[in-house]
């Protein structure tokens, strides 16, 4: 006899999708992809496994959240993410404290990139502790079909040409302002389908 129901329920009674099938090795594989993505910005790093993600998260976004977030990382979700089954899923599997305030968030998850708040509304870190800034996880439509941008900086040999689709028109001018805060500033990991692309604060982008 079991007292607990076999599948965890969200507050409205719907069954939650599972987290990692293998929390140790799945998290390690996804972290390695994220490490490579941040170390070599501008490269689409595919994950070697797929996950059943709750709406509206893609497989890569969901996996990244499970890998990096927990009770220590207050996170902000955009309206589209918060309205789906994702918010209950994140709260259950990561023990994630969800907050409404962008300026204190350690992580921010955006699936509706066009309606993101401006980058300066997120936590830029402190001048003596620039590592405390927000890491944004932004789910985009494509890494190749958008307006062409040229990236340079640490981790890129020479320069890289990236064409991310589905970003708001102000994104790259905001990114310039973010660069001026260096060593403070937010970092971004873009996700698309089952792949990651890193954009740390050191990268200069010409739109």
């Amino acid at each position: 006899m079991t007292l607990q129901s076999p599948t965890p329920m969200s507050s409205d009674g719907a069954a939650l999708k599972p987290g990692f099938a293998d929390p140790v090795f799945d998290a390690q594989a996804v972290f390695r992809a994220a490490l490579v993505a941040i170390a070599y910005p501008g490269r689409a790093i595919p994950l070697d496994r797929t996950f059943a993600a709750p709406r509206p998260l893609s497989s890569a976004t969901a996996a990244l959240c499970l890998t990096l977030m927990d009770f220590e990382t207050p996170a902000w979700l955009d309206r589209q993410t918060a309205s789906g089954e994702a918010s209950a899923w994140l709260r259950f599997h990561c023990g994630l404290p969800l907050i409404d305030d962008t300026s204190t968030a350690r992580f921010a998850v955006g699936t509706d990139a066009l309606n993101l708040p401006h980058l300066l509304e997120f936590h830029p870190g402190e001048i003596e502790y620039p590592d405390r800034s927000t890491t944004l996880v932004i789910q985009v439509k494509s890494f190749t079909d958008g307006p062409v941008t040229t990236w340079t900086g640490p981790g890129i040999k020479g320069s890289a040409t990236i064409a991310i689709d589905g970003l708001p028109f102000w994104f790259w001018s905001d990114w310039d302002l973010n660069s001026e805060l260096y060593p403070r500033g937010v970092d971004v990991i873009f996700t698309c389908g089952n792949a990651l692309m890193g954009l740390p604060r050191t990268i200069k982008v010409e739109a």
Partner: protein
Amino acid sequence: MSPTAALVHKDDGYNFAYLDEQTKRMIRRSLLKALSIPGYQVPFGGREMPLAYGWGTGGIQVTASVIGPDDVLKVIDQGADDTTNAVSIRRFFQTVCDVAVTESTAEATVVQTRHRVPETPLKEGQVLVYQVPQPEPLKKIEPRETETRKMHAYAEYGAMQVTLYEDVAHFGRIAKTYDYPAVINGRHLMSPSPIPKFDNPKMEMNPAIQLFGAGREKRIYAVPPYTSVRSLDFDDHPFEVQTWKGSCALCGSTTSYLDEVITDDRGSRMFVCSDTDFCNTRQAEAAAAKAAVDKVSGEEA
């Protein structure tokens, strides 16, 4: 279902790679921020490890958070694969994650090192983990972290330059030979850990990912691939690396870092490569080439 779900490791009394998952997540977050701010020391919640501080607890925690079942691990101590520290750390990871190990720099995906950068050039995707005793390059100038943190925040590195100038005034040259301070990505002053200054140029524009872990001081920092690493110097006293008059007594290399080895109690000495894998590979290649030549000349005769 994950393809690795059936994996087991030798000592299943511990989680894979010893650390618990929450600790790994915390270290992983620190590693990503460290790569985002090259050379900046990210504080992290360093755990007690089953070996004493000073034996690589920082490097081990970084390696444990990065390593997976498909990795091939190499551990070196002053360039050698067969010294105490290297052997015990390699055995630790074989025990707690049953990972493949190698002595070959080219075959390794993760290299944990104490105080050397391998002579064999690293490739993209390889991870080099340094063990760091003292992450703060300004510590001997300013012992208070409240002050050094401000110095890093505002890039106030004049005091370090003055320290090097005092060497020039006393000795006519910069006397620092290891743990030689470098500016990363044109912004943060960083201790490269006590590697010989011979290895500083290898850090610059390296295709591999370089991670640094200091266990006692609880700091993690990183040099991303293809990043500028400028060793501090003066226009009229440019940065120079060590050179040797002779070559390695075993493999004849003139380009590697040489250790002086005392061979008896009458003052005899020899110089040999500090990187044992590099030296052994070169000796094997030379022996193979000689055997091939002998074979050809034997057939001719």
